[in-house]
């Protein structure tokens, strides 16, 4: 759920890149990270396996600048695409304001795309979210591959886009379509803020800092820990 702070005039939104394994979700974030000026982005956090498959999620915070007088921040997440990370996907999806479904345009991946889209709907349902109402855009990635290997945009639309949501052809490795996809989901999420649905901080409640993170003294980064223990409820 979007966090809107009227006192400091800030909006923070969570966008999740969803899709089957190897469809290009992490590649989208890497491209965005590489293009955005350093003062408008935070560190990209990737919890990945040794073979660079996403284990838990990738995370990239972006500062979109001021929109309608609000400082607007986007938190971009990816989920692990492999089927056996179902629980993890559900956890990352929690509190999402918008979803980018990254589909692999290769014809042989069609079944995986459909299964992943069904998985998305099921997980949204488990969070009590009506999948028909959540802001969603589709990205048909790898459209740069030879035509004999891929489904074209109309065929991908026919297979996946039964909601008629915005869809973007993309080559996430080189960039075409990545920016357009982010723009598309940002518009949908922010347009939704014109209505209800945000967690609001009332205007009469001035905050003590400009935002979380502003004005606090420098600190040391947490060091790796040597051992762990957990208490039970």
């Amino acid at each position, binding site marked *: *759920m979007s*966090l809107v*702070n*009227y*006192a400091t005039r800030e909006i923070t939104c*969570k966008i999740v890149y969803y899709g089957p394994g190897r469809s290009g979700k992490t590649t989208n974030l890497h491209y965005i990270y590489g*293009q*955005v000026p350093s003062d408008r*982005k*935070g*560190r990209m*956090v990737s919890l990945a396996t040794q073979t660079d498959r996403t284990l838990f*999620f990738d*995370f990239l*915070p972006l500062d*979109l*600048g*001021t*929109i*309608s007088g609000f400082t*607007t*921040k986007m*938190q971009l997440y990816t989920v692990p695409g492999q089927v056996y990370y179902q*629980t*993890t996907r559900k*956890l*990352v999806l929690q*509190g999402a304001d918008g979803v980018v479904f990254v589909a692999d345009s290769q014809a042989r991946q069609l079944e995986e795309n459909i299964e992943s889209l069904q998985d998305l709907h099921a997980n949204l349902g488990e969070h009590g979210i009506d999948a028909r109402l959540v802001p969603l855009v589709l990205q048909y990635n790898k459209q740069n591959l030879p035509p004999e290997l891929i489904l074209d945009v109309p065929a991908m639309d026919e297979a996946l886009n039964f909601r008629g949501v915005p869809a973007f052809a993309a080559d996430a490795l080189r960039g075409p379509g990545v*920016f357009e996809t982010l723009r598309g989901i*940002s*518009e949908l999420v*922010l*347009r939704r*803020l*014109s209505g*209800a649905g945000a967690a*609001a*901080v*009332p205007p009469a409640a*001035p*905050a*003590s*800092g400009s*935002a*979380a*993170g*502003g*004005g*606090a*003294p420098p*600190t040391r980064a*947490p060091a790796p*820990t*040597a051992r*762990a*223990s*957990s*208490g*039970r*409820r």
Partner: protein
Amino acid sequence: MTVAVVERWVETPLRHFVQDAQVTLALLLTPSGQVLGQHGFNRAMDVMAACALAAAIHASSAELGKLLEGKPFAGLHHAGATRQIFLAPAETRRGTLLCLTVFDDATSIGIVQLYFGELRDRLAAGAPSARTTPPAVLADSFEQDLNRNLTLLFRR
């Protein structure tokens, strides 16, 4: 000692906790990773990353607890050579909040847990009873601003 908050009602409880428990870092966040208040960070982007990781740790350890004995862990203590982490949930009328705190040998896990109990009670007592329904947040012209900022962001 600086505490920065997104929602004012968390400020006093968080300030008391930081002062009493003598922790070096403290974060209050929602289970989906949105920050509500913090002490000790100096970059908003670092706060966001820390919140994302804290929410992930909490979510995964809770699932692990459910898997093992059918119930989530009440808290997680991670002890390093010089610094330690304590992460635990607090139930409020505004839903579950998470508190992540980092501390060194100026204090101890016992002290931190003791004052976390007080923090949890203060948050429960001070939480607003319901969310305020927001008025329209964005002006009709927001797409112009968005397009301008995205263009700046990608230098296109």
